[in-house]
Protein backbone atom coordinates (compact mmCIF):
# COMPACT_ATOMS: atom_id res chain seq x y z
CA UNK A 1 0.00 0.00 0.00
CA UNK A 2 2.80 2.42 0.91
CA UNK A 3 4.64 1.41 -2.28
CA UNK A 4 1.54 1.99 -4.35
CA UNK A 5 0.94 5.41 -2.83
CA UNK A 6 4.58 6.31 -3.53
CA UNK A 7 4.22 5.36 -7.16
CA UNK A 8 0.90 7.17 -7.47
CA UNK A 9 2.50 10.40 -6.21
CA UNK A 10 5.18 10.03 -8.87
CA UNK A 11 2.54 9.47 -11.51
CA UNK A 12 0.76 12.68 -10.43
CA UNK A 13 3.97 14.67 -10.16
CA UNK A 14 5.66 13.49 -13.36
CA UNK A 15 3.07 15.01 -15.72
CA UNK A 16 3.52 18.40 -14.07
CA UNK A 17 7.29 18.03 -14.02
CA UNK A 18 7.79 17.10 -17.67
CA UNK A 19 5.28 19.68 -18.90
CA UNK A 20 6.87 22.24 -16.58
CA UNK A 21 10.22 21.45 -18.18
CA UNK A 22 8.85 21.80 -21.71
CA UNK A 23 7.41 25.21 -20.79
CA UNK A 24 10.66 26.27 -19.14
CA UNK A 25 12.42 25.70 -22.47
CA UNK A 26 10.41 28.67 -23.73
CA UNK A 27 11.83 31.06 -21.15
CA UNK A 28 13.15 33.97 -23.21
CA UNK A 29 11.80 32.41 -26.41
CA UNK A 30 8.06 33.18 -26.19
CA UNK A 31 6.42 34.87 -29.18
CA UNK A 32 6.04 38.06 -27.16
CA UNK A 33 6.89 39.25 -23.68
CA UNK A 34 3.44 38.69 -22.13
CA UNK A 35 3.14 35.16 -23.46
CA UNK A 36 6.69 34.33 -22.48
CA UNK A 37 5.94 35.44 -18.92
CA UNK A 38 2.61 33.59 -18.87
CA UNK A 39 4.11 30.29 -20.01
CA UNK A 40 6.99 30.45 -17.55
CA UNK A 41 4.55 31.37 -14.76
CA UNK A 42 2.55 28.26 -15.59
CA UNK A 43 5.79 26.29 -15.55
CA UNK A 44 6.59 27.67 -12.10
CA UNK A 45 3.14 26.69 -10.78
CA UNK A 46 3.63 23.17 -12.12
CA UNK A 47 7.07 22.83 -10.53
CA UNK A 48 5.62 24.04 -7.23
CA UNK A 49 3.04 21.25 -7.39
CA UNK A 50 5.74 18.71 -8.25
CA UNK A 51 7.73 19.74 -5.19
CA UNK A 52 4.73 19.12 -2.97
CA UNK A 53 4.13 15.65 -4.43
CA UNK A 54 7.79 14.64 -4.33
CA UNK A 55 8.37 16.00 -0.83
CA UNK A 56 5.52 13.85 0.35
CA UNK A 57 6.72 10.84 -1.66
CA UNK A 58 10.18 11.18 -0.10
CA UNK A 59 8.66 10.62 3.35
CA UNK A 60 7.36 7.23 2.19
CA UNK A 61 10.60 5.76 0.96
CA UNK A 62 13.81 5.39 2.88
CA UNK A 63 16.77 7.22 1.37
CA UNK A 64 14.84 9.29 -1.18
CA UNK A 65 14.64 13.08 -1.25
CA UNK A 66 12.61 15.51 -3.29
CA UNK A 67 15.65 16.01 -5.53
CA UNK A 68 16.63 12.37 -5.92
CA UNK A 69 13.08 11.58 -7.02
CA UNK A 70 13.11 14.41 -9.53
CA UNK A 71 16.58 13.92 -10.95
CA UNK A 72 17.90 10.43 -10.36
CA UNK A 73 15.39 8.08 -11.91
CA UNK A 74 15.81 6.23 -15.19
CA UNK A 75 13.52 6.82 -18.12
CA UNK A 76 11.33 3.77 -17.47
CA UNK A 77 10.74 4.93 -13.90
CA UNK A 78 8.97 8.13 -14.99
CA UNK A 79 5.20 7.77 -15.26
CA UNK A 80 4.15 10.88 -17.17
CA UNK A 81 1.89 10.59 -20.20
CA UNK A 82 3.23 10.88 -23.75
CA UNK A 83 1.26 14.09 -24.34
CA UNK A 84 3.41 16.23 -22.06
CA UNK A 85 6.68 15.01 -23.66
CA UNK A 86 5.73 16.42 -27.05
CA UNK A 87 8.07 19.18 -28.22
CA UNK A 88 7.39 22.91 -28.58
CA UNK A 89 7.07 22.61 -32.34
CA UNK A 90 5.36 25.97 -32.78
CA UNK A 91 3.17 28.24 -30.64
CA UNK A 92 0.01 26.38 -31.67
CA UNK A 93 1.51 23.11 -30.42
CA UNK A 94 2.46 24.75 -27.12
CA UNK A 95 -1.05 26.10 -26.59
CA UNK A 96 -2.91 22.98 -27.71
CA UNK A 97 -0.75 20.69 -25.54
CA UNK A 98 -1.40 23.01 -22.60
CA UNK A 99 -5.13 23.14 -23.32
CA UNK A 100 -5.48 19.35 -23.54
CA UNK A 101 -3.50 18.94 -20.33
CA UNK A 102 -5.40 21.67 -18.43
CA UNK A 103 -8.75 20.24 -19.51
CA UNK A 104 -7.65 16.95 -17.93
CA UNK A 105 -5.72 18.37 -14.97
CA UNK A 106 -8.45 20.61 -13.55
CA UNK A 107 -11.11 17.89 -13.12
CA UNK A 108 -8.40 15.49 -11.91
CA UNK A 109 -7.54 17.92 -9.11
CA UNK A 110 -11.22 18.44 -8.37
CA UNK A 111 -11.44 14.71 -7.72
CA UNK A 112 -8.27 14.63 -5.67
CA UNK A 113 -9.59 17.40 -3.41
CA UNK A 114 -11.82 14.67 -1.96
CA UNK A 115 -8.98 12.18 -1.56
CA UNK A 116 -8.91 10.29 1.73
CA UNK A 117 -5.20 11.04 1.84
CA UNK A 118 -4.95 14.39 3.61
CA UNK A 119 -1.74 15.54 1.94
CA UNK A 120 -2.95 14.74 -1.57
CA UNK A 121 -6.18 16.56 -0.79
CA UNK A 122 -4.25 19.60 0.50
CA UNK A 123 -2.01 19.69 -2.59
CA UNK A 124 -5.10 19.47 -4.82
CA UNK A 125 -6.88 22.27 -2.93
CA UNK A 126 -3.84 24.43 -3.47
CA UNK A 127 -3.20 23.48 -7.12
CA UNK A 128 -6.78 23.71 -8.38
CA UNK A 129 -6.72 27.48 -8.02
CA UNK A 130 -3.69 27.68 -10.28
CA UNK A 131 -5.02 25.11 -12.72
CA UNK A 132 -8.18 27.17 -13.27
CA UNK A 133 -6.06 30.12 -14.38
CA UNK A 134 -4.08 27.86 -16.72
CA UNK A 135 -7.21 26.48 -18.37
CA UNK A 136 -8.59 29.98 -18.75
CA UNK A 137 -5.39 31.09 -20.46
CA UNK A 138 -5.05 28.09 -22.78
CA UNK A 139 -8.72 27.99 -23.84
CA UNK A 140 -8.72 31.70 -24.64
CA UNK A 141 -5.68 31.15 -26.86
CA UNK A 142 -7.19 28.08 -28.56
CA UNK A 143 -10.19 30.22 -29.49
CA UNK A 144 -8.09 33.15 -30.61
CA UNK A 145 -5.78 31.05 -32.77
CA UNK A 146 -8.40 28.63 -34.07
CA UNK A 147 -10.79 31.41 -35.02
CA UNK A 148 -8.03 33.80 -36.10
CA UNK A 149 -6.38 34.03 -39.50
CA UNK A 150 -6.29 31.26 -42.06
CA UNK A 151 -2.72 30.43 -41.08
CA UNK A 152 -3.30 30.46 -37.33
CA UNK A 153 -6.36 28.27 -37.85
CA UNK A 154 -4.42 25.78 -39.97
CA UNK A 155 -1.56 25.60 -37.48
CA UNK A 156 -3.96 25.08 -34.58
CA UNK A 157 -5.88 22.37 -36.43
CA UNK A 158 -2.54 20.70 -37.24
CA UNK A 159 -1.56 20.82 -33.58
CA UNK A 160 -4.82 19.11 -32.59
CA UNK A 161 -4.26 16.49 -35.31
CA UNK A 162 -0.82 15.75 -33.88
CA UNK A 163 -1.55 15.94 -30.16
CA UNK A 164 -5.14 14.77 -29.74
CA UNK A 165 -4.21 11.10 -30.37
CA UNK A 166 -2.28 11.12 -27.10
CA UNK A 167 -5.24 11.95 -24.88
CA UNK A 168 -6.49 8.39 -24.79
CA UNK A 169 -4.08 7.15 -22.14
CA UNK A 170 -5.05 10.00 -19.82
CA UNK A 171 -8.33 8.24 -19.20
CA UNK A 172 -7.31 4.59 -19.32
CA UNK A 173 -7.02 3.33 -15.80
CA UNK A 174 -3.77 1.54 -14.99
CA UNK A 175 -3.90 -1.15 -12.26
CA UNK A 176 -2.23 1.36 -9.95
CA UNK A 177 -4.86 4.03 -10.57
CA UNK A 178 -7.63 1.49 -10.11
CA UNK A 179 -6.18 0.42 -6.76
CA UNK A 180 -5.83 4.02 -5.61
CA UNK A 181 -9.37 4.83 -6.66
CA UNK A 182 -10.68 1.83 -4.72
CA UNK A 183 -8.80 3.00 -1.64
CA UNK A 184 -10.56 6.38 -1.89
CA UNK A 185 -7.20 8.03 -2.51
CA UNK A 186 -7.08 8.34 -6.29
CA UNK A 187 -9.33 9.96 -8.88
CA UNK A 188 -12.12 8.35 -10.88
CA UNK A 189 -10.95 8.83 -14.46
CA UNK A 190 -14.44 8.34 -15.91
CA UNK A 191 -15.55 11.51 -14.17
CA UNK A 192 -12.40 13.30 -15.27
CA UNK A 193 -13.15 12.22 -18.84
CA UNK A 194 -16.72 13.55 -18.65
CA UNK A 195 -15.43 16.96 -17.61
CA UNK A 196 -12.71 16.88 -20.28
CA UNK A 197 -15.30 16.13 -22.97
CA UNK A 198 -17.44 19.01 -21.78
CA UNK A 199 -14.52 21.43 -22.01
CA UNK A 200 -13.87 20.21 -25.57
CA UNK A 201 -17.48 20.74 -26.62
CA UNK A 202 -17.53 24.17 -24.92
CA UNK A 203 -14.35 25.47 -26.52
CA UNK A 204 -13.74 23.72 -29.85
CA UNK A 205 -16.81 24.92 -31.80
CA UNK A 206 -15.99 28.56 -31.12
CA UNK A 207 -12.39 27.83 -32.13
CA UNK A 208 -13.57 26.32 -35.38
CA UNK A 209 -11.62 23.15 -34.66
CA UNK A 210 -12.73 19.73 -35.86
CA UNK A 211 -11.57 16.65 -33.95
CA UNK A 212 -14.13 13.96 -34.75
CA UNK A 213 -11.95 12.26 -37.39
CA UNK A 214 -8.81 12.10 -35.26
CA UNK A 215 -7.84 8.54 -34.37
CA UNK A 216 -6.59 7.99 -30.84
CA UNK A 217 -3.35 6.15 -30.17
CA UNK A 218 -2.61 3.49 -27.63
CA UNK A 219 0.25 4.81 -25.54
CA UNK A 220 1.29 3.90 -22.02
CA UNK A 221 3.60 6.50 -20.55
CA UNK A 222 1.86 5.95 -17.21
CA UNK A 223 3.49 2.52 -17.05
CA UNK A 224 6.90 3.85 -18.07
CA UNK A 225 6.78 3.28 -21.86
CA UNK A 226 7.85 6.58 -23.35
CA UNK A 227 8.48 8.24 -26.67
CA UNK A 228 12.01 9.07 -27.76
CA UNK A 229 11.52 12.63 -26.52
CA UNK A 230 11.71 11.78 -22.83
CA UNK A 231 15.28 10.53 -23.07
CA UNK A 232 16.41 13.85 -24.52
CA UNK A 233 14.47 15.77 -21.88
CA UNK A 234 16.09 13.78 -19.08
CA UNK A 235 19.54 14.23 -20.57
CA UNK A 236 19.20 17.96 -20.11
CA UNK A 237 17.16 17.85 -16.91
CA UNK A 238 19.48 15.47 -15.08
CA UNK A 239 22.81 16.71 -16.39
CA UNK A 240 23.85 18.79 -13.38
CA UNK A 241 22.85 16.18 -10.78
CA UNK A 242 24.61 13.41 -12.71
CA UNK A 243 27.76 15.47 -13.28
CA UNK A 244 27.91 16.90 -9.75
CA UNK A 245 26.00 14.55 -7.44
CA UNK A 246 24.17 16.30 -4.56
CA UNK A 247 25.09 19.74 -5.86
CA UNK A 248 23.01 22.70 -4.73
CA UNK A 249 23.10 26.47 -5.10
Amino acid at each position, binding site marked *: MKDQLYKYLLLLGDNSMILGHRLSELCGHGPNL*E*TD*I*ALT*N*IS*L*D*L*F*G*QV*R*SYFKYAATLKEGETEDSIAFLRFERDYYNTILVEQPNKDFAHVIVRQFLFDAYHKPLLEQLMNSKD*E*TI*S*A*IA*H*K*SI*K*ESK*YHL*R*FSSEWVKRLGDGTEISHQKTQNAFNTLMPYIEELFIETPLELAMKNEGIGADLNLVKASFDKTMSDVLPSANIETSDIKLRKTNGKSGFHSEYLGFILTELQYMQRAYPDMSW
Partner: protein
Amino acid sequence: MVGLLENITDENLKAELLKITDPEIPVLTVFDLGVIRKINVVDKHVNIDITPTYSGCPAMDTISMDLKVAIESLGYTANINLVLAPAWTTDWISEEGKKKLEEYGIAAPLTESLDKRALIDGEPIVKCPNCSSTNTKLVSQFGSTACKALFKCNDCLEPFDYFKCLK
Protein backbone atom coordinates in the same frame (compact mmCIF):
# COMPACT_ATOMS: atom_id res chain seq x y z
CA MET B 1 -3.21 38.55 11.70
CA VAL B 2 -1.15 40.62 14.13
CA GLY B 3 -3.24 38.78 16.77
CA LEU B 4 -0.79 35.95 16.22
CA LEU B 5 1.77 38.00 18.11
CA GLU B 6 -0.38 38.57 21.21
CA ASN B 7 1.06 35.68 23.19
CA ILE B 8 4.64 36.71 22.62
CA THR B 9 6.00 38.43 25.72
CA ASP B 10 9.44 39.28 24.34
CA GLU B 11 8.98 42.70 22.70
CA ASN B 12 12.26 42.38 20.80
CA LEU B 13 11.13 39.16 19.18
CA LYS B 14 7.81 40.73 18.25
CA ALA B 15 9.57 43.70 16.68
CA GLU B 16 11.94 41.48 14.69
CA LEU B 17 9.11 39.33 13.34
CA LEU B 18 7.18 42.40 12.24
CA LYS B 19 10.15 43.44 10.12
CA ILE B 20 9.97 40.39 7.85
CA THR B 21 8.51 41.30 4.48
CA ASP B 22 7.70 39.63 1.18
CA PRO B 23 10.94 39.85 -0.85
CA GLU B 24 9.00 40.62 -4.03
CA ILE B 25 6.59 43.14 -2.49
CA PRO B 26 8.75 44.65 0.26
CA VAL B 27 6.01 46.95 1.61
CA LEU B 28 4.01 43.93 2.81
CA THR B 29 4.99 42.25 6.04
CA VAL B 30 4.41 38.51 6.18
CA PHE B 31 1.55 39.32 8.56
CA ASP B 32 -0.07 41.70 6.03
CA LEU B 33 0.25 38.95 3.45
CA GLY B 34 -1.44 36.43 5.74
CA VAL B 35 1.05 33.62 5.23
CA ILE B 36 1.85 33.16 8.93
CA ARG B 37 -0.65 30.69 10.35
CA LYS B 38 0.65 29.90 13.81
CA ILE B 39 3.36 31.05 16.21
CA ASN B 40 4.29 29.10 19.26
CA VAL B 41 7.03 30.18 21.65
CA VAL B 42 8.20 27.72 24.31
CA ASP B 43 11.10 29.01 26.40
CA LYS B 44 13.78 29.77 23.86
CA HIS B 45 12.23 27.90 20.96
CA VAL B 46 9.94 29.39 18.30
CA ASN B 47 7.69 27.25 16.10
CA ILE B 48 6.06 28.93 13.11
CA ASP B 49 3.62 27.54 10.54
CA ILE B 50 3.63 29.33 7.21
CA THR B 51 1.56 28.62 4.11
CA PRO B 52 2.56 29.35 0.49
CA THR B 53 0.68 31.87 -1.62
CA TYR B 54 1.28 29.98 -4.89
CA SER B 55 2.71 26.43 -5.06
CA GLY B 56 5.88 27.44 -6.84
CA CYS B 57 6.36 30.81 -5.17
CA PRO B 58 10.14 31.18 -4.66
CA ALA B 59 9.51 33.87 -2.03
CA MET B 60 8.52 31.14 0.44
CA ASP B 61 12.06 29.83 0.81
CA THR B 62 13.35 33.37 1.31
CA ILE B 63 10.67 34.17 3.88
CA SER B 64 11.40 30.97 5.84
CA MET B 65 15.09 31.78 5.83
CA ASP B 66 14.51 35.41 6.87
CA LEU B 67 12.30 34.31 9.77
CA LYS B 68 14.87 31.78 10.92
CA VAL B 69 17.74 34.24 10.79
CA ALA B 70 15.76 36.95 12.62
CA ILE B 71 14.67 34.58 15.38
CA GLU B 72 18.08 33.00 15.84
CA SER B 73 19.74 36.41 16.02
CA LEU B 74 17.90 36.90 19.32
CA GLY B 75 19.23 33.68 20.81
CA TYR B 76 16.21 31.52 20.06
CA THR B 77 16.07 28.32 18.06
CA ALA B 78 13.54 28.29 15.25
CA ASN B 79 11.47 25.74 13.41
CA ILE B 80 9.58 26.91 10.33
CA ASN B 81 6.97 24.46 8.96
CA LEU B 82 5.38 24.81 5.57
CA VAL B 83 1.70 23.82 5.84
CA LEU B 84 -0.51 23.38 2.77
CA ALA B 85 -3.98 23.20 4.29
CA PRO B 86 -6.07 25.25 4.46
CA ALA B 87 -4.92 26.80 1.19
CA TRP B 88 -4.06 30.51 1.21
CA THR B 89 -6.54 32.94 -0.34
CA THR B 90 -6.19 36.65 -1.14
CA ASP B 91 -8.87 37.22 1.54
CA TRP B 92 -6.09 36.71 4.06
CA ILE B 93 -4.30 39.86 2.96
CA SER B 94 -5.09 42.37 5.72
CA GLU B 95 -6.96 45.63 5.03
CA GLU B 96 -3.78 47.43 6.01
CA GLY B 97 -1.92 45.25 3.49
CA LYS B 98 -4.35 46.11 0.68
CA LYS B 99 -3.84 49.80 1.38
CA LYS B 100 -0.07 49.37 1.26
CA LEU B 101 -0.35 47.49 -2.05
CA GLU B 102 -2.28 50.38 -3.64
CA GLU B 103 0.23 52.91 -2.37
CA TYR B 104 3.04 50.78 -3.75
CA GLY B 105 1.42 50.84 -7.21
CA ILE B 106 -0.18 47.40 -7.27
CA ALA B 107 -3.98 47.20 -7.60
CA ALA B 108 -5.38 45.12 -4.71
CA PRO B 109 -7.38 41.94 -5.38
CA LEU B 110 -11.08 42.33 -6.14
CA THR B 111 -13.74 39.86 -5.01
CA GLU B 112 -13.93 36.57 -6.88
CA SER B 113 -16.82 37.49 -9.19
CA LEU B 114 -15.43 40.92 -10.04
CA ASP B 115 -12.02 39.36 -10.70
CA LYS B 116 -13.61 36.96 -13.17
CA ARG B 117 -15.40 39.79 -14.97
CA ALA B 118 -12.19 41.80 -15.17
CA LEU B 119 -9.94 38.95 -16.29
CA ILE B 120 -12.29 37.02 -18.58
CA ASP B 121 -14.83 39.47 -19.90
CA GLY B 122 -12.39 42.37 -19.90
CA GLU B 123 -14.80 44.61 -17.98
CA PRO B 124 -13.10 47.79 -16.77
CA ILE B 125 -13.29 47.35 -12.99
CA VAL B 126 -9.69 47.28 -11.80
CA LYS B 127 -8.72 50.69 -10.50
CA CYS B 128 -5.48 52.30 -11.69
CA PRO B 129 -3.23 52.81 -8.63
CA ASN B 130 -1.71 55.86 -10.31
CA CYS B 131 -4.77 57.99 -11.20
CA SER B 132 -7.68 55.95 -9.76
CA SER B 133 -9.40 55.62 -13.14
CA THR B 134 -11.31 52.38 -13.76
CA ASN B 135 -10.86 52.85 -17.50
CA THR B 136 -8.22 50.13 -17.54
CA LYS B 137 -7.42 47.17 -19.73
CA LEU B 138 -6.04 43.69 -19.12
CA VAL B 139 -2.74 43.19 -20.97
CA SER B 140 -1.90 39.72 -19.68
CA GLN B 141 -3.39 37.32 -17.12
CA PHE B 142 0.14 36.55 -15.96
CA GLY B 143 2.43 39.25 -14.66
CA SER B 144 5.88 39.72 -13.19
CA THR B 145 5.23 37.17 -10.42
CA ALA B 146 2.81 34.27 -10.01
CA CYS B 147 0.35 36.37 -8.01
CA LYS B 148 -0.06 39.23 -10.45
CA ALA B 149 -1.75 40.11 -13.77
CA LEU B 150 -0.62 42.96 -16.02
CA PHE B 151 -2.94 45.90 -16.71
CA LYS B 152 -2.76 49.22 -18.49
CA CYS B 153 -4.60 52.43 -17.69
CA ASN B 154 -6.38 53.99 -20.68
CA ASP B 155 -6.43 57.41 -19.05
CA CYS B 156 -2.92 58.01 -17.67
CA LEU B 157 -1.47 55.28 -19.95
CA GLU B 158 0.61 53.75 -17.11
CA PRO B 159 1.02 49.98 -17.08
CA PHE B 160 0.49 48.45 -13.63
CA ASP B 161 0.24 45.14 -11.76
CA TYR B 162 -2.99 43.75 -10.39
CA PHE B 163 -2.82 41.29 -7.49
CA LYS B 164 -5.05 38.48 -8.76
CA CYS B 165 -7.87 37.21 -6.58
CA LEU B 166 -7.06 33.67 -5.48
CA LYS B 167 -9.85 31.68 -3.86
